[in-house]
């Protein structure tokens, strides 16, 4: 009797120690994942990865950017943790000649890692579609500006101000602008990093984007589509100013 209970006790003890080992393993795995995750979060937060937003459109784009960043940090931490943990735990000397356990798969796990990423990317897709629709929705009264690309300069034409032409882009703050892009030679691409919006200027067709500047200041206009020898230098200045200053600028230009 005593012997049997001792046997049971030792079985329980063994099961417990196995459980303990598994628990310890899980704690270690989670710890590695957390270290990677925290490190990545610090990298994401301590560096300013995105330029300061100067448009309402870019605010919305930045929201998706952060959504994607959270997903990315979680997934990379997960994969990184499993790889590091496995190598740390189960590495054997090169002359070891035993085999691992013959695990062929696990239907539940396989369904999980098909379904969860699918749901995540669909969520991202829906979020993106909403932002895309909002960023493409023109309000009542957008200001019309034509951006004409040519090797290797931009020319902006203000249709609402007697086709005022300028090499510098001046915009009143808070006023939605519809840019219509055209090109006279090859493909260019209009981009103000702080506005977030970008669109190619394609010979033969017209393209457009909307930008609602919300921050005063000077920003860079760059061409992002390789357009030939002077592509790198095809830059201009964008200035976002108060409405009054804008009106004064228009007057000065028309004079």
């Amino acid at each position, binding site marked *: 009797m005593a012997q049997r209970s001792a046997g049971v006790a030792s079985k329980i003890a063994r099961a417990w120690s196995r459980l303990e080992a598994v628990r310890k393993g899980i704690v270690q795995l989670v710890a590695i994942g957390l270290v990677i995750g925290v490190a990545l979060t610090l990298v994401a937060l301590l560096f300013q990865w995105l330029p300061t937003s100067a448009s309402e459109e870019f605010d919305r784009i930045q929201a998706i950017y952060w959504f994607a960043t959270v997903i990315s940090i979680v997934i990379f931490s997960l994969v990184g943790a499993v790889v590091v943990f496995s190598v740390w735990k189960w590495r*054997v000397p090169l002359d070891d000649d035993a085999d*691992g356990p013959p695990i062929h798969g696990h239907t539940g796990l396989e369904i999980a890692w098909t379904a969860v990423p699918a749901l995540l990317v669909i969520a991202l897709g829906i979020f993106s579609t909403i932002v895309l629709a909002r960023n493409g929705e023109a309000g009542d009264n957008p200001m019309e500006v034509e951006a004409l690309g040519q090797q290797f300069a931009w020319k902006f034409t203000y249709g609402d101000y007697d086709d005022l032409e300028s090499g510098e882009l001046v915009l009143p703050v808070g006023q939605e602008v519809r840019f219509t892009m055209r090109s006279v030679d090859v493909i260019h691409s209009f981009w103000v990093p702080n506005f977030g919006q970008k669109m190619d200027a394609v010979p033969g067709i017209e393209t457009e984007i909307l930008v609602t500047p919300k921050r005063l200041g000077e920003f860079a206009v760059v061409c992002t*589509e390789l357009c030939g020898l002077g*592509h790198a230098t095809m830059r201009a200045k964008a200035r976002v100013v108060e409405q009054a200053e804008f009106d004064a600028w228009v007057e000065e230009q028309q004079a």
Partner: protein
Amino acid sequence: MTTTAHDERHELYPEHFEPPRSPTWKLFFGPGLVRGAWMGLLFFGLGTLLVLGLRWWWSWTPVWNTEVVLAVAAMTAAPIGFLAGIGSFDYWLYYFSGRPTRPEDHSGHGARTWKDYFRVNTDHKVIGVQYLVTTFVFFTIAGLMAMFFRAELAKPGLQFVDSQTFNGLVSVHATLMIFLFIIPAFAGLANFAVPLMLGAPDMAFPRLNALSFWLLPIAGVMFVASFLAPGGAFGAGWTGYAPLSEGQPLGQTFFNMGVQWAGASSIMTALNFLVTIITMRAPGMTFWRMPLLVWANFTTSLLVVIATPFIAGSQFFVMFDRILHTDFFVPEGGGYVLGYQHIFWFYSHPAVYIMMLPGFGIVSEVISSMSRKPIFGYRLMALSLVGILVLGFSVWAHHMFVAGMADWLRVPMMITTLLIAVPTGIKVFSWTATLWRGRIHLTTPMLFALGFVTMFVIGGLSGIYLGSVPIDIAASDTYFIVAHIHYVLFGGSVFTIFAGVYYWFPKMTGRMYNERLGKLHFWLTFVSFNATFFPMHYVGLRGMPRRVFDYDEAFGDMNFFISIASFVLGASFVVFVYNVVVSWTRGEIADPNPWRANTLEWQVSSPPPIFNFDEIPQVVGGPYEYGVPGARHAVMSPAKEAEEVHA
């Protein structure tokens, strides 16, 4: 360097032998590089005469048009002359002209001396090595170009080169890396491994296989030679967007035609793989018993066969616009500029998977055998390849979210793009699950495989950002893209190519590489790779466009750091070259199966016999049954017996 002993079988047909010839006659008129050289020149002359004759006859002025002569004589006729000269067409020409052919002639098979690597060789193992050596030569050239323009980019402003040369360096770097390294290096590894893994004596069409290889150096020479063209190398990027490419100097023609030769090579190899995999599997080798590398090359080959004609078309259209004055992409003539991008990306997006799926196959082999565990979820691993193949054709327009294409296409293409994360995720999670509780041998190929898994996840995740249309609008055409593609193509494809080369090195050469140097190579590459490409995400998002020789002062420090890291990355390759050269000539003799792997290539000697299997393998189980008591992938039955059974 020899792969085999002399084979006497062709001597069974003495009556088919040609009359004896003197060695001098053979040198000049027998198949080989000498005949290739003079026939190339001869055909160049004939092509030139044809062009001049026709132009003179139609009284076109001027009679001499360099671009037309280049396209017709130098880039079409001369390569055909060269191929005929080295003997690629000999057998077929004998057949067409009714002269006796020798179907059992294996004189072009196998390598007995190093010279046999420099002729038309029909042995898939020799061709595999030819591919790999050639592609690594172009990898070196393209890498040096990268170093050169990174030196230029270390500081804002122009330092060393003018802007056409800069654009040329960037364009030729990408073109060589894609068409002359990643795609054909995978073809080379598969050429060596796939027939062995299937239990086949060779590829289905050995002569076509040899021809596919020899098309490749032609394309490579064209891309590099474009620097000699008046006006400099093609500088419209490897994407060659019209109408910029249509206004480029003569160098652009080198790109238009080079792509045709590289593309033809890909298509022929892919057809060969398809037929080989479908018809030449060993008895018992069902589709569900094929190693994942074979699955990977099956799906890749389907992608190549369906998609490659599109890039061929796009480049012909550009060349016709340039030479024949057609108006495919000329808006003034009613052409449609965005049409170029649609056709181009209908190939070039699937091409991303052409450059990735074979790597998935390699990594599956390496991780399974080095973890001593069956690959986790084998069938789902195979099916996810098929999933990527199918989805891969429905995402091309995600390269065009800011191109001004039809608005309605954006959202559907975004959804399909994001969905590709699902089969890709399945693969990544299954590899990590294969590691779980394995007995992990951290050899050099395994290090590269694990480096691949983690780096590819980063490339995949930045792909998720770019898949989302609004983020793509902000990030496209910036250095963020440069970072993304290098995480996918370097951290992804190149790491798997290294894994594959180290993994099959003992099988190819019969000698073992140096493990310590291999590990040194890995860690140097891994660290400097991240130091080079990770900061590019940052400068890209902050506002630095891609393909620029000059940039805002604010990015100066970061670019200086990137350039220094890229030089270390370049230097790490020297370790690899040294290791390969020394180990190939003086390395330790390798065991036939140093990894104790189950797949068939490891069940024969290293290097394998001339027809791979002296005994016919009878496949009786899956390829990754590690740790399953008593399980076998194949049993070998003596050839005679097998012949009787299958007679």
